[in-house]
């Protein structure tokens, strides 16, 4: 028993990695099958959290933190709000489109093609996974030193997004005024 537990603890990180990976896949698969959008959102959130876990196990903790903070905390929360907003008015939509079978076939082909491509062309890694871990300090320094241009461009992108969002609000307010409430 101890040997088993020792063995288990020795490879704990690998075990956890496998568990997280499988869980993420399961949650993703669930997204296809669940009928109600809110449940689909929950499945997505769990996928993202598991991915965050994987990132943490790989050693890039700050990316894990970003994953949960940005994706789950901002994007998915926004999504949940919208679902709640729109679902109050809607009474469910049919689950599948007309392209179910072709879609599945396409999915199989894509999966197969990419897997085969990767397996054929995988280069030897220079370090084992998880070998080169670094912390947020190193990351920030290099981000602002070497990649300052990308940093600035990113902020421009965010400003553009804000302006666009404002424009959308104005358009929606105008159509509100011209349209009779119904």
């Amino acid at each position: 028993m101890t040997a088993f537990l020792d063995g288990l603890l020795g490879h704990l990180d690998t075990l956890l990695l496998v568990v997280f990976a499988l869980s993420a896949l399961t949650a993703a698969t669930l997204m296809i099958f669940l009928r109600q959008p809110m449940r689909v959102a929950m499945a997505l959130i769990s996928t993202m959290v598991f991915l965050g876990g994987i990132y943490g196990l790989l050693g890039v903790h700050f990316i894990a933190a970003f994953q949960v903070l940005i994706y789950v905390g901002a994007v998915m929360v926004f999504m949940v709000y919208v679902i709640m907003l729109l679902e109050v008015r809607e009474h469910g939509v049919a689950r599948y489109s007309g392209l179910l079978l072709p879609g599945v076939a396409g999915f199989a082909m894509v999966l197969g093609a990419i897997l085969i491509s990767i397996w054929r062309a995988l280069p030897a890694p220079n370090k084992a996974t998880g070998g080169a871990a670094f912390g947020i300090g190193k990351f920030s320094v290099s981000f602002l030193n070497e990649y300052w241009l990308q940093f600035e461009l990113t902020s421009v992108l965010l400003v553009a997004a804000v302006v666009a969002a404002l424009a959308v609000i104005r358009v929606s307010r105008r159509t509100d005024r011209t349209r009779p409430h119904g």
Partner: protein
Amino acid sequence: MDRTQMLLAVAIGLFSLGLLGVIVRRNVLVMLMCMELMLNGVNLSLVTFAQQTATTAGAVLVFLTFVVATAEIALAIPIVLLLVRDKRTLDLDAYSDLKG
């Protein structure tokens, strides 16, 4: 199979599942969420490969992906809101005005 291969397989699986969801699901919001899933899969593969180098380039790229995804969602949702308000349904098949 080593860890890299497994992680890549997971990433590919997430990506394909996301693509399947876009093709197969009819609800607009569910489609959006599947697109997020695709992005996640790509992120995972980015991180996996970034781990293999000692530079921070991969991590920076991942961070930028986050930012772009956020900006995209920030705008996609209002567009969907306006569409829904106009068509009064979340069914994607109703949005076929660009036919022909």
